[in-house]
């Protein structure tokens, strides 16, 4: 395990150190993959997008300003790469409205929670994944950063290039949409 501090790795990568950048990629690959998975909505696209994110970052590392937060910069590339991808595919326009008969979320994402998870919890998780995937893209980006990655509103605002208040409102509206779409399942779980 490479113990070098991230600032040192970033500095070496900025000077062209590919090995240092590869170590940075190792440290952030799961989180970046999580963001693009939430944005893209399926594993195979997410795998390609994650590679593209790091390749873009490697090409642009020279423009990264010392003293800035590397993960903020990397998340921004991840979100922008995902938005470009979605725009290119026209997925947002063609996105079907939420349908309870669609394949369940986790399964659609290509994920499995393992046998230890209960059937009801699996079902709810699948529906939640499906509903999140159907959120408007900017709400989804905020959800991916705040809920999945645990970023504060301030950090998410820096990544998304908006105000904290905007992130707060996007999260509130995203949750209202999810509540409305998942109401039957939430009641089922409660009962």
């Amino acid at each position, binding site marked *: 395990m490479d113990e070098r501090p991230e600032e040192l790795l970033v500095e070496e990568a900025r000077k062209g150190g590919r090995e240092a950048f590869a170590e940075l*990629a190792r440290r952030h690959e799961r989180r970046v993959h999580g963001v693009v998975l939430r944005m893209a909505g399926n594993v195979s696209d997410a795998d390609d997008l994650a590679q593209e994110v790091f390749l873009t970052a490697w090409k642009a590392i020279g423009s990264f300003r010392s003293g800035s937060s590397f993960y903020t910069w990397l998340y921004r590339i991840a979100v922008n790469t995902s938005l470009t991808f979605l725009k290119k595919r026209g997925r947002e326009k063609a996105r079907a409205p939420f349908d309870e008969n669609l394949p369940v979320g986790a399964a659609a994402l290509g994920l499995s929670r393992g046998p230890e998870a209960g059937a009801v919890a699996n079902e709810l998780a699948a529906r939640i994944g499906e509903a999140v995937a159907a959120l408007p893209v900017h709400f989804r980006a905020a959800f991916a950063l705040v809920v999945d990655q645990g970023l504060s509103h301030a950090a998410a605002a820096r990544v998304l290039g908006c105000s904290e208040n905007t992130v707060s409102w996007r999260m*509130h509206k995203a949750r209202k949409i999810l509540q409305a779409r998942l109401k039957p399942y*939430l009641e089922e779980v409660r009962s």
Partner: protein
Amino acid sequence: MRCAPARKRLSDALDGALRPGRKPGVEAHVKACESCRSYRDGLARIQAGAALPDAHPPEFWAAFERGLERKLAAAEAGRATVVPALAVRRRLAWAAAAAMVLAGAGIWYALLRPQMPVTEAWVPYEDVLDPFVEAAEADPELAASVDREVRAAIDEMTPARDADAVVLSAADPLFWEALSDDELEDIIAELEDETGRGGPL
């Protein structure tokens, strides 16, 4: 507090973004409002159920890193080949710029160069005239003909004498007035030597 702001604050609270001063008001509202209590419970379930499980086993990440390493290496190699190509293009650009400057200088020299005096323009033709001069020397008639032509050409080129031009001579009083005392003394001495009578003074 109404339900709408309470629900917005419940969302903030889940993200750890609720200002501490607002927490008691929200709690009081939720305690009194059945609908908002249900809403809060729903939010908590969604939050708990939204966590993404790790999508891939460790083998996937090893393959991911190998694939990324290959792409980074390819990008670096591409960058290395692009740099010399750019250098070549830069050299070509400099060469093209130099050629344009030279062409501009040539055009300027051809069109706008200062006109040289006629006497200098004759110099390159001296060698051309040599065979004619030699032929004229061998033939007296031709020599006389050439001589006439040359004299006529010289007369033609010689500026006409201005009839109004003032030509100072010893008979002109201005000639003498223009002389300094030393020059005048020298002339007087020379005239005395030549004639023994001195000048007009």
